[in-house]
């Protein structure tokens, strides 16, 4: 196991380097945006004096590299500066929103991952039957429709026409957990529909890919029933690609939910990002981007480690 720990440490190190490169990209990309931050913040009340004062206050007179280093030093301690709009610390604004997004992602993942893997196994078992084709068509339809469209369809049928669920997923502090699950069901369902197809099809493909292996024929020649051939003999060898696609989709659940959050007016980090961009609240934009990048890197790292842990050759060296 020592090997795996050192491997994880090594990958984490690479992750940190990647994150550093991304932070440079984010900072200077924002820097490249046309217009002056002070001007943007002050808007119509900009006079030469107030602009100068604003620049002084924001430290814009210093060279970009110095400002980058200052920003980075703060970011390492989760201090992303102060929002230009509200004047509150960015970290406190983001943390609640990010927690909300994580909650929604976890909600969707808890439903989507088991369903898609079980469905993937079933369609692999029943491959080329009607069930397989219907499942394929349905999941393909859901993955090919834009998520905002899926969201509106769900609102139309489950909220407007039948009023089974609320159309707007607004959150209040005093809601209990069940109520929370109820209110956020529609956005979670939308996300489930979007990610299930991808994971299910990958599970199916990974398993079917293995069915031609001699050890699968051996299992069949030992009299193993078909479902057991798939679950016991094919699935354990198919984990690596499945884990990878699951990780990719989890990352999407956190970073790609902007549209869904907007549709359901859900107070997540995606909506915050959209607001911040439109208001030119650059510290918030930078912080959000950095968090998204870190999420991607961590989930990919988790996928790699997962793939290693499920490979007996790597887990039990000669």
């Amino acid at each position, binding site marked *: 196991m020592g090997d795996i720990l050192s491997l994880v440490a090594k990958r984490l190190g690479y992750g940190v380097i990647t994150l550093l490169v991304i932070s440079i990209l984010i900072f200077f990309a924002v820097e490249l945006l046309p217009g002056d931050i002070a001007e943007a913040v002050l808007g119509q009340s900009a006079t030469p004096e107030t602009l100068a004062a604003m620049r002084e206050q924001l430290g814009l007179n210093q060279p970009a590299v110095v400002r980058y280093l200052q920003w980075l030093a703060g970011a390492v301690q989760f201090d992303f500066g102060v929002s230009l709009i509200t004047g509150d610390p960015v970290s406190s604004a983001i943390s609640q929103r990010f927690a909300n997004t994580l909650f929604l992602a976890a909600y969707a993942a808890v439903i989507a991952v088991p369903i898609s893997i079980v469905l993937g196994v079933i369609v692999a078992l029943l491959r080329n039957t009607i069930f397989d084709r219907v499942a394929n068509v349905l999941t393909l339809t859901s993955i090919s429709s834009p998520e905002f469209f899926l969201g509106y369809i769900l609102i139309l049928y489950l909220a407007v026409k039948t009023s089974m669920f609320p159309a707007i997923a607004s959150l209040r502090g005093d809601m209990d957990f069940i109520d929370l699950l109820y209110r956020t069901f529609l956005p979670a369902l939308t996300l489930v529909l979007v990610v299930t197809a991808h994971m299910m099809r990958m599970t199916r493909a990974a398993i079917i890919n293995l069915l*031609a*292996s*001699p*050890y699968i*024929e*051996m*299992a*069949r*020649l*030992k*009299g*193993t*029933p078909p479902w057991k051939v798939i679950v*016991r*003999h094919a699935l*354990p*060898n198919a984990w690596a690609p499945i884990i990878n696609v699951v990780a990719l989709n989890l990352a999407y659940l956190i970073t790609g939910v902007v549209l869904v959050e907007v549709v359901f007016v859900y107070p997540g980090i995606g909506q915050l990002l959209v607001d911040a961009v439109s208001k030119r609240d650059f510290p918030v934009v930078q912080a959000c981007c950095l968090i998204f990048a870190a999420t991607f890197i961590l989930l990919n790292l988790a996928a790699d480690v997962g793939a290693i842990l*499920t490979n*007996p*050759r790597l887990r*039990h060296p*000669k």
Partner: protein
Amino acid sequence: MAIKKKDDVLLKIKDLRIEGYSDEKWIEIVHGVDLTLHRGEVLGLIGESGAGKSTIGLAAMGFARDGCRISGGSIEFDGMELTTTPESALRALRGSRIAYVAQSAAASFNPAHKIIDQHTEAPVHYRIQKRVEAQEDAMQLYERLRLPNPEEIGFRYPHQVSGGQLQRAMTAMAMACRPDLIIFDEPTTALDVTTQIEVLAAIRDIVDQFNTAAIYITHDLAVVAQMADTIKVLLKGNEVEEAPTEKMLNSPKEDYTKSLWAVRSFTRKQKNRPKTKGAVPVVSVQDIDAAYGDVKVLKDVSFDIYAGMTVAVVGESGSGKSTTARCITGLLPPTKGKILFNGEELPASYRDRTKDQLRQAQMIYQMADTALNPKVKISEIIGRPAQFYSGLSGGELKSRVDELLDLIELEPSKYYNRYPPELSGGQKQRIGIARALAAEPTFIICDEVTSALDQLVAEGILKLLDRLQRELNLSYMFITHDLATVRSIADEVVVMRQGEVVEQGPKDKMFKPPHHPYTDLLLSSVPEMDPNWLTTLLEERGVDNVGEASDASNKG
């Protein structure tokens, strides 16, 4: 191993017909084969690839691979008609009453589970034994099959166990439910000769002990002679003849059987090194060491190859034969020592070699299937090196390709525009040879070029290589683990073991005693057509002194 009473029939196959699906229609591949097997009898099925041996073996379990179907005839196993039995009832036979041992144990064990868990799967599933009982039984079987550490070995994963041991573990697994019948499908083909012996001995022991009937499928006559009571010869889905082993070996009736028996009749006169003083070898390997990462794989390897001669490099898998070839071609720069070509030192890496140095040494590979790009026309496969090394183009290039195709005895107009998948195994290997010749080399490395081929086809390739050598004065480095091939084509032999040269010399000396003990082990491990060969050998060596066991004792 006496043949049992006639009324004790276990398996009776009559007029079995099997179809395979290709090009969108069903084509018959087994054309009415009969087969009768008594309890405790071992039947050897032999034939070349495409003879339908495996297909018939699987049909005896009521099983047809995807894309195949049993289309006619009857398969009666112990009174049960398998062709009409529903799938669920057939499944209940498999693993419990009929078991299967596959060619490659390394590929047929599931890499994700421990060996013993795969062993106990069938007995636990059929509720013959509880899990713990099944595990104890497995350990006993491992011990009977003389696996090292029988108490512990099952708890390893397949990749942690050697090929020969895995093959025995698979035989043990087939025995788990004490079946009435085991199908052995080329169980030793992928093994080295020294390992093959212990697996053969183990299989024969266990089949005897439990009085299990077996169908033993192989293309190797000498092997089947050791194992079978009766031999059936197949050709392209038809039976050629069947007879008790002794009779079949001594007096085969059919011409095809005789031709199989006569294979390896090809020999050529051994050449000797040039007598003139100061003759420079074409290739001289001098004291090379090589390593993959930190793992040292070659140590002080030296040998010379003179013009127009064939040097066979023999040894078990992992002995460093192919690594030496990689060093000579510059794919793996040696860590020490040098390689001289006509007396001149070659740069270690192929990147630093000139075009002319590169053209002088060409390779032919074992798997013609994977060594030829399936999407590229034959004319281009052969034409590209001619273009690259000789700068030919247009009409010149075409006539050169035609010339090369003529040289390998394939009609140019017929093959010029075809693709590799349309060719047979032997034809593909010929294309591989033409590709090597296209560069106009003086030296060719042949890496197990005949191992994947049927014996008759392999002989054709050897004859072709011999003719080309005479006509073009080529030097060959012939990598092989097959000593019969060495006997027929080599002038000199280099024996390698664990990255070192154990012994080398002219062929006539190498095949005559006294040998180095390892050379002796290799030579004596090659199966002979004598049905008593294995028994005699085991008596001479002692049962605990074959294969890996003797390997260990020789190390000291």
